[in-house]
């Protein structure tokens, strides 16, 4: 009986040595792993969506391969509702190699505006829940998760329609000019048009005007909207109160009408 007991003891000791050596080497490898996140960028995608691209640099100088690397990002708005979700999967990151992964998430701006127009006119923030999972040293699955807040710049920040100025063209026609200004705080260019309907106090449409826009990121816009109003002098005086219906149309989103009273 003594021999099997000794054999059991030797076998157990050998397995313990292997296990401890494996864990020690795996833990030691962690210090040779280097993860870096590059500057995330927003860019308009082809199908009217906004592409969020985040470069990830992984330098695996450890003793073993990293397997089943899976990066998942869930974007949510200020209320916590999910806006977009995307995953990037890399099956193997071999040891001794430097890998760059581009993690792309498409954001549907129309969907974002559906949760509130504040993203169009007010600077806000988007919350991204990022979780990265991988199998380390073949046997140890690990997951790292964090919440990151990205600032969201409004494309029509401080959108203002100024005071109406009237000019009589003839007995039946008048010209109305309205100054329009805003600042593009977004990370993308605003390329599209704004259509504005001029309505009187009864809600009847008097005239409409459309302006093409091409406002680069982080720049401001100031221009005039011109309306040709077929009104008599008496009717024109009645139209000094009313509202504008503003329609925004860009390659990324459609929004409107936004009602702005005047007078």
């Amino acid at each position, binding site marked *: 009986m003594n021999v099997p007991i000794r054999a059991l003891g030797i076998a157990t000791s050998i397995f313990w040595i292997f296990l401890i050596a494996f864990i020690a080497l795996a833990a030691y490898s962690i210090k040779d792993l280097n993860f870096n996140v590059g500057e995330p960028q927003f860019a308009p995608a082809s199908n009217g969506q906004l592409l969020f691209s985040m470069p990830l640099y992984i330098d695996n100088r450890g003793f073993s391969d990293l397997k089943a690397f899976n990066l998942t990002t869930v974007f949510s708005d200020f209320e916590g509702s999910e806006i977009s979700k995307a995953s990037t999967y890399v099956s193997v990151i071999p040891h001794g190699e430097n890998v760059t992964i581009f993690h792309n998430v498409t954001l549907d701006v129309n969907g974002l505006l559906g949760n509130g127009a504040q993203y169009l006119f007010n600077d806000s923030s988007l919350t991204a829940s990022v979780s990265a999972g991988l199998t380390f040293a073949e046997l*140890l*699955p690990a997951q790292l998760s*964090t919440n990151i807040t990205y600032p969201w710049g409004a494309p029509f920040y401080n959108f203002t329609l100024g005071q109406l100025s009237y000019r009589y063209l003839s007995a039946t026609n008048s010209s109305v000019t309205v100054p329009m200004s805003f600042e593009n705080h977004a990370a993308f260019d605003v390329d599209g048009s704004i259509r504005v309907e001029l309505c009187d106090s009864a809600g009847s449409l008097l005239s409409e005007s459309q302006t093409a826009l091409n406002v680069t990121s982080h720049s401001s816009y100031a221009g005039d909207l011109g309306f040709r109003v077929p009104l008599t002098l008496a009717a024109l005086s009645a139209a000094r109160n009313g509202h504008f219906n503003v329609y925004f149309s860009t390659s990324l989103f459609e929004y409107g009408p936004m009602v702005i009273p005047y007078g």
Partner: protein
Amino acid sequence: MVEEKKKSRNIVRDMSFRVVKATVRAALVYVLYFFLAPLLAPLFVMVPMLAGTIESFVVIYIVLMILSDITEGTIFQYFFSTARALFVIAYLLLSLGDGVISVGYENFSLTVNLTMFYTVAVVLSLLGFAKSILQAIHFLNERAEADAISSGLQP
């Protein structure tokens, strides 16, 4: 009188041998810990409590090992080696729980699934426990046999 003196000298020599053996084994375990601890340094940075608990584990393990070596040749040796095996199992159960460790650091949360390591370690500890029990049974069996032989020879 001479025989008694010889016997007590043997006991002293035997005891000294056990102490030296226990010291050497304890030193070997400590040297192993001394060289492995720096390898685990990256983990200690992420989990500051880990260094303290591993140190306590090594101290208790070495104490039980010394006691087991000093009491060699008695039933207490197996008590202490069984206690050592049970201590390893209890430490693993208490420190690792279900085998999934979650550590929070600033805004980050790291979850490591150690189920595989945990399972193997618990199985090896159970084997160590079984070995101690078998050794105890074997020791008692041998002693009973020796008693039976000596009592059979007496009449």
